[in-house]
């Protein structure tokens, strides 16, 4: 199991806990969607897994070499072009100069941006930027890939395409992916497993398995989406008073 979370808790200062008693384990090569309403600590949980923040209680097990991370906005460096952004990730990993260039070219090709390597981030569309960011996170060559609502800011057409794209790359590279989203359809579309996080404090309240049948059968997928949405709304309604 590359990722194991045990009774994980997090609070900032003296405030109410953001995460409380989170338990989950994620298997090798699994694609897990982490679903929750705003303020459920999804991003905090991801940051903890990435080692950007420390938990205040509990224990977690993550791969010793850390995790690759993809942010909601592409967060590409504007002073570097697309290829150089990917090369920087390789450089910080200690890859030699000649190999960097080859590897960056391959990764650009993998995300279908072979011809855009010399473009600067501001010359790319939102979808292209996210694909460069995806290539950059793949350049880190970590087994675990954490994604924090990476497609939330994209238009619907681009998002649909990138779902296909991400699924293809996941299958090609065999990464373990934890994908944070607040979009139920997206979670069902991508995840093999959907974990629902409650809000304030965040805790895993339910999980669903998304079978291969759900992926090919719109009716089944719709049913599951409806079921998850109902449970999510129940969770949100609890905060009404």
């Amino acid at each position, binding site marked *: 199991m590359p990722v194991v979370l045990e009774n994980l808790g997090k609070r900032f200062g003296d405030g109410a806990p953001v995460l409380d008693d989170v338990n989950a384990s994620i298997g090798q090569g699994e694609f897990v969607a982490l679903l929750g309403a705003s303020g459920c600590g999804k991003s905090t949980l991801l940051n903890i897994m*990435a080692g*950007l923040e420390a938990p205040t209680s509990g224990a977690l097990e993550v791969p010793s070499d*850390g*995790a*690759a*991370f993809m*942010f909601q*906005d592409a*967060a590409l*460096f*504007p*002073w*570097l072009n697309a290829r150089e952004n990917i090369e*920087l*990730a390789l*450089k*910080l*990993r200690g890859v030699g100069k000649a190999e960097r260039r080859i590897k960056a070219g391959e990764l650009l090709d993998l995300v*279908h*941006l072979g011809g*855009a390597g010399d473009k*600067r*981030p*501001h*010359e*790319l*569309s*939102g*979808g*292209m930027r996210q*694909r460069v960011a995806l290539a*950059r996170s793949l350049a*880190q060559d970590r087994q675990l890939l954490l994604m924090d609502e990476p497609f939330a800011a994209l238009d619907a*057409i*681009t998002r*649909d*395409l990138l*779902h*296909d*794209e991400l699924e*293809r790359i996941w299958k090609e590279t065999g990464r373990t992916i934890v994908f944070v989203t607040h979009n139920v359809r997206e979670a*069902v*579309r991508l995840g093999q497993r959907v974990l629902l996080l409650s809000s304030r404090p965040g805790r895993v309240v339910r999980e669903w398995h998304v079978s291969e049948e*759900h*992926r*090919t*059968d*719109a*009716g*089944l*997928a*719709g049913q599951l989406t409806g079921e998850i949405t109902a449970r999510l709304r129940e969770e949100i309604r609890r905060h009404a008073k």
Partner: protein
Amino acid sequence: MPNKPTSLVEPAETRHITAALTRSSTGPSDLRELEAGLDSLQSDAVRKARVDWSRVLLPVAALAVLVLIWQLYVSLGFKRQDLVPGPLDVLGQLGTLWADGKLQEAVWTSLQRGLVGFLISVAIATPVGLLLAQVAPLRRAFGPLISGLQVLPSVAWVPAAIIWFGLTDATVYFVVFMGAIPSIINGLISGVDQIPPQYRSVGKVLGASRLQLALQIILPAALPGYLGGLKQGWAFSWRSLMAAEIIAVGGTIGFGLGSLLDQGRVLSDMTTVMAAILMILAVGILIELLFFGPIEKRLLRRRGLLAGSTR
């Protein structure tokens, strides 16, 4: 079954619905093509830059207007000609100074000292600024002092420098350093402060060490602010240099533009004073036009920050 409502679909029938809703029915090559299409729809066409003559003509016209107003004022004869010389008198004086070789000597001496002083200031201020921006206790300790030094006019150091170093070049350089270094440090620090926090997170996730973070992410990210600091640092170098040259005359201090200005004052020669002032101004404008302007423009354009600006 004639009574069955058509809107109700039995579970057995749902199995036959196509997958279009869940998974786009695209193959890998189709996906590549789709993305390429979308990419070209969503990216702007490259616009070709062309020479914009208004950039040259407008400043020249503005200059011509100012000179004309100056000439007009002098022609009206409110003041004695030797107190307020006209543009042509000053131009004539510049010609005389050029023929004597004095003008070239003054410009060259000052420019050389200004540039050397500025470059040494950059070399000192950059690591110090980076260190202060990155290490919180150091910044808290020295930050106010550096800001204070920036407010202190560097001319105030001239008397001290003369006492310490005598009438030598060391005096001039010391004053230049005290003017330029704090403003470059401050520019770099404020550039670092304006970096989106996301960049640091990305750097950490990518596994950058502290030094790598500083040199490969923080410094380039802070470049626009840093360049602003450099510009101001140069301005402070040049001003401080002029102040030092005007006050500290003689000894082994060479003959610079400030010295020329002071000589004009001593001789009550207003044309020389005006000529020196105009040369000091001209050097400042030229450095901006030929050096900082193009660098800044290129930097901003490459980062996509130039669109819609009045530059």
